[in-house]
């Protein structure tokens, strides 16, 4: 098991190098010298520009420049944001927490709802229950996240049942940490539900297909033939086997969650990575764009890694080979 994890972690290294290379190419091929632009900006002191020049080796040959970019990336140093005049790292650190909270919340919520419904629909395949939820799933996978988000914003604008935009509405310094947490959760609710709504359909379909497939395998037939009780067959054998591929999906889901989250964040005004990269693109803040890109790729890799480790943990065929 340890060996397996180590192997997977080592496999990440070439991906990270590739990632840094892609981002380096994007920065290099962007037209215009950004430092010239910065120099014209009176708010940026010449010493800051000089500091960045040396740290990214912009006066050196291109290979050296790449190696320095790689070295800085390893230190998570993505330079200084042109627009905010603070290190990109600091900006991302502030935003990534919100995006992760949003992603984890919506994944948790969508699994919690989709898995039980999928199990029932799979068990009663072809029933009205199955047909009804399959239709809902079709609708869910066909709804673009931004449209759902806009519909929710419309709904909130009419009813004002939940707060929208930002992460908090209590700014009292004396507020207890539980109060602040509750407030944060309330703000999380709208983007979280939107994201859950968009992802739940795909999740349902996958889980239902897995369940039906496993339910028709020989080993389930053999379990019936041995006289194993129905409950045990459904929840112990079928469910656990059907959940296994979902762990791989969990890893991949992080990617689609991040994509959907970005648009949802922007529309719902949730200060996360998605709104950060948009602001960066709009203000042509290239180092901030690259920092966000690399971190988002890194999150995806970590998500896949977690999925693989979970799968190995639950599947003896991978754990013991």
């Amino acid at each position, binding site marked *: 098991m340890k060996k397996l994890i180590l192997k997977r972690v080592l496999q990440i290294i070439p991906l990270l190098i590739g990632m840094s290379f892609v981002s380096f190419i994007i920065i290099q091929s962007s037209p215009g010298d950004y430092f010239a632009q910065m120099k014209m900006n009176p708010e940026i002191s010449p010493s800051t520009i000089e500091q960045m020049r040396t740290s990214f080796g912009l006066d050196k040959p291109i290979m050296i420049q790449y190696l320095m970019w790689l070295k800085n990336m390893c230190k998570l140093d993505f330079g200084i944001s042109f627009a905010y005049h603070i290190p990109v790292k600091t900006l991302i650190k502030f935003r990534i927490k919100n995006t992760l909270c949003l992603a984890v919340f919506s994944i948790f919520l969508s699994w919690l709802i989709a898995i039980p419904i999928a199990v029932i629909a799979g068990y009663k395949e072809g029933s009205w229950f199955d047909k009804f939820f399959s239709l809902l799933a079709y609708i869910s996978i066909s709804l*673009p996240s931004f449209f759902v988000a806009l519909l929710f914003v419309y709904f909130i604008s009419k009813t004002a049942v939940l707060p929208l935009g930002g992460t908090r509405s209590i700014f009292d310094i004396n507020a207890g940490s539980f109060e602040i947490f509750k407030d944060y959760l309330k703000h999380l609710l709208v983007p979280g539900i939107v994201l859950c709504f968009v992802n739940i359909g795909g999740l349902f379909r996958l889980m239902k297909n897995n369940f039906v497939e496993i339910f028709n395998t020989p080993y389930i037939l053999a379990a019936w033939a041995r006289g194993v009780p129905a409950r045990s067959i459904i929840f112990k054998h079928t469910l656990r086997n059907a959940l296994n591929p979902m762990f791989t999906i969990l890893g991949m889901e992080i990617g689609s969650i991040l994509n959907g989250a970005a648009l949802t964040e922007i529309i719902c005004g949730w200060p996360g990575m998605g709104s950060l990269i948009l602001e960066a693109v709009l203000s042509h803040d290239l180092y901030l764009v690259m920092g966000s890109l690399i971190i988002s790729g890194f999150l995806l890799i970590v998500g896949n890694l977690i999925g693989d480790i979970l799968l190995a943990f639950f599947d003896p065929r991978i754990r013991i080979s």
Partner: protein
Amino acid sequence: MRNFLGRLKKYSKVSYFSFWFLIIFYLVSFFADILIPYHFDYQFRDKPYHPPSKIHFIDTEGRFHIKPFVYETFVDDPIFRTYKENYSVRYPIKFLVDGPERNVFFIFKTKKYLFGVDAPAGIFLFGTDTYGRDIFSRLLYGSRISLSISIIGVLISFVLGMITGGFAGYFGGITDQVLMRIVEILMVFPSFYLMLSLRAMFPLNLSSIQVYFLIVMILSLIGWAGLARIIRGMVLSIKEEDYVLAARSLGLSHWRILVFHILPNTFSYTITAITISVPGYIIGESALSLLGLGIQEPYPSWGNILSSTVGNIRVISDAPWLLLAGAFIFIILINFNILGDALRNVLDPKNW
């Protein structure tokens, strides 16, 4: 083809309907120039955020009219932008009405519009936007832009995917290693972030044509990787088939074998893959335009019709008909999804 349609119909009536719906929708968007009641950029300065026009059959005195008609509207409350109808004159809906001159298909100029009402009244099936432009006309016109971007984008990434996937799978070895590593690295990034980063390489203020091709390029650059990986897998298995070995023993060139004997066999799958991936391109284009990074005003696209609502709760609350663009996207996507699911079964040789 008839055979295919028969199978599709047999598989499910709904998917058969989706197929024709999409064909008709594409035709409609292609002929949007002819079908719209107003030019996409024609502004009714005095009617911003006008709600969808009420189409009447019965007038104020209770008489029934065969020809549907509208009333002229005027601003009732300028703060809340509410409109009231002026019941004094009826404006029946007419066909082939005159309007400002415009270009159709960049070929000929005309003053005729398919349908409309006499000035000063206006017919706004889906309401108007901030500048008082008819959203119905903009949606139809925009669907041509959005749908063509997705089709061109998917075809380009399909060609790229065919070439790389075919080479990687057929030649294997170092070619395969290099190409697949590139694909893997591209797939490491969440597509939205990669899309924005690629967009950031270019200036924000590009001309409409430039932006159009930029979006096509960005979308196909992001999309080809997944296709390449799948085609590679298929080529890998097909190249071990007996008939390919036979072709090789006959001394056919690698190029011939790959192009004439292997890639055509991935075709039924790739048709399905294309159908399934078109929604991604539509969403990609809409998202970019929605964020103001795609198609620029005054040209409409599904995304940028929605863009005035982003971060503006009051607009959403006052003019929810702007969200109809989202509904259009949804309808197209659900039909693509239904059709894609059906094709997966219908085109699978195992199910013949």
